[in-house]
């Protein structure tokens, strides 16, 4: 379990550089529970990576704390055996071979070399690829190597920053299965992403951050139930009209779908009464997460009032 309590990271205003006086993370609190995948969402520069760096002791917090199973990361005797970390797959010595990077990590943790081969197999890096230097790796291969490093010590907690970046569709599916499997065995997974669909498919819980502050957190179902219902019918105009008659405000989207804040059961009942055949009726998940994300982080978006 990961516990973050009123974590703040402020860059001293007396310092130099573009971050001087900037509050990257502002009183952030949340938990990532064992047995669940927690998605950490936010626009670029919202403070996701800074929060994760503080968790693993690479950045010193200005105030507040982050603990792993009740202990500060820096106090863990051999952190690699308890927490698997992947913050940036490209942050490796370009002149080492993939295998050597794993072998060095294994030697640091005191693990046998055989573990390296197991991990290479797990992340599907072939022996030939493992012998190549990382400078020649594609981003997807670096991500696989990073995942292998994170899993090397057989940890119970995973902290992954944008792990799906650069993976092909098969790789993304593989990653998803790997992480859900890890969580179903009781592991704790915290993963950040701006790939909304990816998070939506995999996460059980969501933490949304914008401008360094938590703007929403809870289970995915809770957060998305607020997203309303999407319905389609052969005559969308009639459906919208029927909903209006029944006192349910709705909007008719350009693609012929009808969206409303009411739950699907209510929409179905209205359609039945009006004798309208529905061709699709579901909670507005797909667009829901995106809408939620954009509205929650609207004032922090670079593109202005995106929602």
């Amino acid at each position, binding site marked *: *379990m990961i516990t973050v309590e009123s974590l703040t990271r402020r860059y001293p205003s007396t310092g130099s550089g573009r971050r001087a006086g900037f509050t990257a993370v502002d009183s952030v609190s949340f938990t990532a529970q064992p047995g669940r995948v927690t998605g950490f969402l936010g626009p670029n520069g919202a403070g996701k990576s800074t929060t994760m*760096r503080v968790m*693993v*002791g*690479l*950045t*010193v917090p200005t105030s507040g704390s982050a603990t792993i*199973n*009740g202990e500060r*990361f*820096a106090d*863990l*005797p*051999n*952190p*690699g*055996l*308890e927490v698997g*970390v992947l*913050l*940036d797959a*490209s*942050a*490796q*010595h*370009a*002149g*080492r071979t993939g295998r*050597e*990077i794993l072998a*060095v*990590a294994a*030697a*640091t*943790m*005191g693990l046998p070399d055989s573990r390296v081969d197991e991990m290479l197999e797990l992340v599907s890096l072939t022996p030939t690829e493992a012998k190549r*230097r990382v400078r020649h790796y594609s981003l997807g291969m670096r991500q696989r190597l990073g995942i292998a*490093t994170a899993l090397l010590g057989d940890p*119970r907690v995973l902290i992954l920053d944008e792990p799906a970046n650069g993976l092909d569709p098969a790789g993304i599916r593989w990653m998803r299965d790997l992480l859900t499997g890890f969580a179903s065995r009781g592991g704790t997974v915290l993963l950040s992403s701006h790939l909304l669909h990816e998070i939506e498919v995999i996460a059980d819980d969501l933490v949304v951050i914008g401008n360094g502050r938590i703007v929403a957190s809870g289970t995915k179902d809770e957060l998305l139930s607020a997203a309303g219902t999407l319905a389609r019918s052969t005559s969308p105009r009639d459906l919208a009209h029927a909903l209006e008659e029944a006192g349910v405000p709705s909007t008719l989207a350009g693609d012929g779908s009808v969206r409303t804040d009411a739950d699907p059961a209510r929409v179905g009942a209205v359609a039945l009464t009006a004798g309208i055949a529905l061709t699709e009726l579901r909670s507005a998940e797909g667009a829901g997460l995106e809408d939620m994300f954009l509205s929650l982080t609207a004032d922090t978006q670079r593109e202005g009032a995106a929602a």
Partner: protein
Amino acid sequence: MTAMTIPTDTAQVTPVRRTARPIPTSQLVRVELRKMFDTRSGFWMLVSIGVLSAIAAGSVVVFAPDSDITYATFVRASGFPMSVILPMIAILAVTSEWSQRSGLTTFTLVPSRGRVIGAKGIATVLVGLGSVALAFAVGALGNLAGSALAGVDTVWDVSWSIAPQIVLGNLVGMAIGFTLGVVMRNSAAAIVGYFVVSLVMPGILVLLAQVRSWFEDLQPWIDWNYTQVELFEGATNTGEEWAMLGSTTMIWIVIPLIVGLLFLRRSEVK
């Protein structure tokens, strides 16, 4: 209201603490030694130490007059490439964690940065001792071969009091490089910095000593190059000379290293 028994499993679940032992320092030193030479550049630096030493010893055999075919000449020749390469190895041992960003992994596997830097320091000293031992060995082979080819008597003129000074001189060079690495945390900047303090600065200090007489007496106390050359020559003998070495070591190594370490421990690793 009916009494309810609180199921015990809702009580605070104690996290299962794994029996993880702290990572032993010897293990960290082994890892850091490995990391110094498992890259292409690290590997070739190691090879170049051996190859250049042999070439230097060989050129003494070819070019030096017979009177110079002595052990001291060979040791000096085969040790010269090392006095340049060893500081580079020391610099890169530290700075590659930042310049290549591998520190992101290193410092998450071992959060105590002081321990990592300490292990790097020990590994650097071990490499220095090994390399200088190699220089002595190559020098000895060169001396045997050279004197046989020239048909002169084999002269062993490196005494037991001079040899440790040569070792120490090389370690001083490595320590300067290591310190620059800790302070700058950037490969290019630290290497440039090394050439400034080892090539540019001594010239300026000598010039200053020539034009300002009050500085002439002061120079040996602040010019680390001066005290290092004295070590290479085996000429650090009196108490005052050792005090000069202590002074330059304090100014150029101990103080900057402590300040650099303080900053390094709190800096953000990105």
